């Protein structure tokens, strides 16, 4: 193993990690806002990837141009899911945690079923997109362009999210609702509207990630499942309640995955991520940046 291969795989691990961060950002946002883990998060990613695929296949819109459209569509979808399902799950008086887990999980199964029904279980891929299969060489390191653009987009999205949460009225309403959903009603903020917008925003972020993922990953009804677990680990690693913890968590997951792949056979590459998650929470039960 030369120094070059190590740097090479760490670089691609870093890019993938930034993308994991983007996938997880919406999950972290929703959890931070209302203490709900969306167990259909992977399926949100899946429909974003399908949306990108169909825009490309039918209208020849390149995934890069499709990304904002997909994000907008997912925004609407996320808000609708909140209004139709999650809103009612929040009202449960008994077993609240269980109701949230299983209502969103049931939704995930329905979405997978619908995808199989309408799109068939076939594997699909976006071929001949602008970035697909292209690499750039920087100082002797080859980086795949889709991942590179995805990583940059992820950084941009987190910066935008930071300003959005801290500098806009809606961001402040979001923070206020997060701190005390009961009290905000007294100052005239409609809790449900904030939550619906929060779900929309969270889904839009995963929509962005899905558009990029569609460039270099196969698209099939179960594609969300494998990324969902990585997203949960990413968010938990960073600490629930911390959106920017997801950014750090994503980078760690990406680097650990790349390192594991260097040391162990490829079939064991996910073990490294899981082991690091356990190690971190055993030492710090609130994740790296999580609050009590």
């Amino acid at each position, binding site marked *: 193993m030369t120094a070059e291969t190590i740097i090479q795989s760490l670089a691609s691990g870093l890019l993938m990690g930034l993308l994991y961060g983007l996938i997880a950002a919406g999950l972290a946002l929703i959890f931070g806002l209302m203490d709900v883990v969306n167990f259909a998060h992977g399926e949100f990613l899946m429909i974003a990837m399908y949306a990108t695929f169909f825009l490309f296949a039918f209208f020849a819109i390149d995934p890069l141009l499709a990304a904002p459209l997909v994000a907008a569509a997912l925004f609407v979808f996320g808000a609708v899911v909140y209004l139709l399902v999650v809103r009612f799950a929040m009202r449960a008086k008994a077993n609240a945690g269980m*109701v949230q887990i299983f209502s969103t999980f049931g939704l995930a199964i329905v979405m997978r079923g619908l995808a199989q029904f309408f799109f068939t279980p076939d594997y699909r891929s976006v071929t001949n997109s602008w970035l697909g299969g292209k690499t750039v060489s920087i100082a002797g390191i080859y980086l795949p362009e889709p991942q590179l653009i995805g990583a940059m987009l992820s950084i941009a999205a987190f910066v935008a999210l930071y300003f959005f949460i801290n500098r806009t009225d809606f961001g402040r309403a979001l923070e206020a609702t997060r701190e005390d959903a009961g009290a905000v009603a007294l100052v005239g903020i409609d809790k449900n509207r904030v939550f619906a917008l929060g779900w929309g925003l969270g889904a839009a972020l995963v929509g962005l990630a899905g558009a990029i993922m569609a460039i270099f990953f196969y698209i099939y009804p179960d594609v969300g499942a494998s990324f969902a677990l990585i997203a949960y680990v990413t968010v*938990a690693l960073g600490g629930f309640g911390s959106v920017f913890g997801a950014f750090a968590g994503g980078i760690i997951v990406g680097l650990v995955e790349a390192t594991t792949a260097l040391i162990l056979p490829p079939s064991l590459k996910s073990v490294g991520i*899981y082991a690091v998650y356990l190690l971190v929470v055993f030492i710090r039960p609130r994740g790296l940046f999580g609050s009590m």
Partner: protein
Amino acid sequence: MDTHFAQRRRRDLIMAACLAVVAALVPLFVKDVYVQNIMVLTLMYAALSQSWNILSGYCGQISLGHALYFGLGAYTTALLFTKFGVLPWFGMLAGGAISAVIAMALGYPCFRLRGHYFVIATIVIAEIALVLIQNWDWAGAALGIDIPVRGDSWLKFQFARSKLPYFYFALALACIAWFVTWWLEDSKWGYWWRAVKDNPDAAESLGVVVFNSKMGAAAVSAFLVAVGGSFYAQFVSYIDPESVMGFQFSLLMALPAVLGGIGTLWGPVLGAVILIPLTELTRSFIGGSGRGVDLIVYGALIVAISLALPRGLVSVFSMLTGRKEAAR
């Protein structure tokens, strides 16, 4: 305890005995192999879900990684039988014991975690075990293990021709899991567990050893689930990592209890009796085309029941009979 509670417990026991007798008579009238197969699965899931319910329902430590213990039971039995000729009956006990020990070893670090951190840890640990078994050549790796069928025998617990012995074993397992729950419900453990579930900090301050309570629940729960796994290995006579240790098993085990009523005595039974036949029937009648309609029906049912009846289906019964405490 007050007489009302004692009355309820006696009534539960009598009802369970009657149901067990009725269930035992059913195969005399139902000869169809397909239906018998569904009945075996229903009883197995009732037993599994009842066992899962001990840790996740009564003690409130939501595990979505119980496939680990199911798989351990299945693999221990299958490996001991195919590699060393050890009879499945011993394999079953060995699998249960190994699972209980592992559950406590894992519980030691995990029970410090709370809420979603704990849930994700259980998923991740089962996932690690799955990947390790998939890469373990001696245990058949991803291909799994074919358990050779050497004729019908109770000694080797394999029956090629008839489903009936499996049916009676599954029934016995479901009864044992139910009885263990019934018995624990009124033991000091049962009270500790409910205290731990409701408010661990308050329980600790009142002298409940929270940590040991969780360990006890994990061990009992894992032991019974592993016995279920051993049974399943004998029943299907072929196992591979994904089919006994995959994430979907952790969910399939949790769902009957969640739908029937989590943390209740009858919830898992009721949930399994409704859910498993429904799943099997939708799969064979509308899912055959492979187009995912069974998933849509199944998922929509989960969403609808968890939203409409957060206390589970048993709450409908307690509403009808006006028993307030039944949904506890």
